């Protein structure tokens, strides 16, 4: 538990954050905090924007994401559909156990491979 968690009263969300780092053939989308219903649309918008830059590899770093609901999951799926138009891939990186469970129970792990580290996700060969 970090300092901001200790100050946060029960029921209050950690602010949702998105940051994108680009390289020549891909991008890392860092999603942090709580991807809750009133902000979740931003996740799909960001992934689709990056996909439209026609970078074939989008890595979604979830290592600091503590919550996601179905609109956020749908945003990842819509980003996946967009990047596939350009024969690209979306890869999930380092979800915490509760987020990984959500991905497994919805069987979205069948759509997106999950990697332990950014380096592993970046180096793994493209399927297509």
């Amino acid at each position, binding site marked *: 538990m970090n300092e901001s968690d200790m100050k946060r*009263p*029960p*029921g*209050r*969300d950690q602010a949702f954050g998105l940051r994108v780092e680009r390289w020549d053939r891909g991008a890392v989308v860092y999603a942090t905090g709580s991807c*809750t*219903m*009133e902000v979740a649309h931003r996740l*799909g918008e960001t992934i689709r924007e990056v996909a439209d830059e026609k970078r074939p590899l989008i890595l979604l770093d979830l290592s600091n994401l503590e*919550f996601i*609901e*179905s*609109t956020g*999951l*749908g*945003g990842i*799926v*819509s980003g*996946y*559909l967009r990047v596939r138009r350009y024969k690209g891939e979306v890869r999930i990186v380092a979800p915490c156990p*509760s987020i990984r469970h*959500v991905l497994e*129970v*919805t*069987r*979205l792990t*069948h*759509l997106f491979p999950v990697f332990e580290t950014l380096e592993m996700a970046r180096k793994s060969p493209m399927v297509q």
Partner: protein
Amino acid sequence: MNVGRQQGASESESRPLNTFKEITVDNDLTEAKRPEEAILRDLSAHGYDENTTFAIKLALEEAMTNAFRHGNQCDPDKRITVRYSVTDDRIEIQVCDEGEGFCPGDVPDPTEPGYIDRPHGRGIMLMRAYLDEVEFCSKGCSVRLVKFRKQTP
């Protein structure tokens, strides 16, 4: 009445409504956080663990989003009413919208191969996956959510 109950779940008796707290909010997703925060505070006060808190937060966000978007059709003049009871042994929540209702049986399973790459339609499935009971009432305008405290051996 259209009832979509989680298969295999034991049916528990509804508690008398006078033991419930009630919060009514405008049909707005930011407003919809108010009952969630109140319920999660009650969970914390009753010592529920992180996994239960995650499950309730997820199911409640799905129920509120469904009420806002599918029930109330994003209409800002409509409202969402949440009634809830948090005790040491269980959590029960009812989320009611002012829409036309729906038949839960008409919602396809989003984990099936033909539906898995659709961006929408996972809310009801997630509620059922994380809770002990999920029951739709009032032609689908109300959903009753129940989770029991996990018994430690």
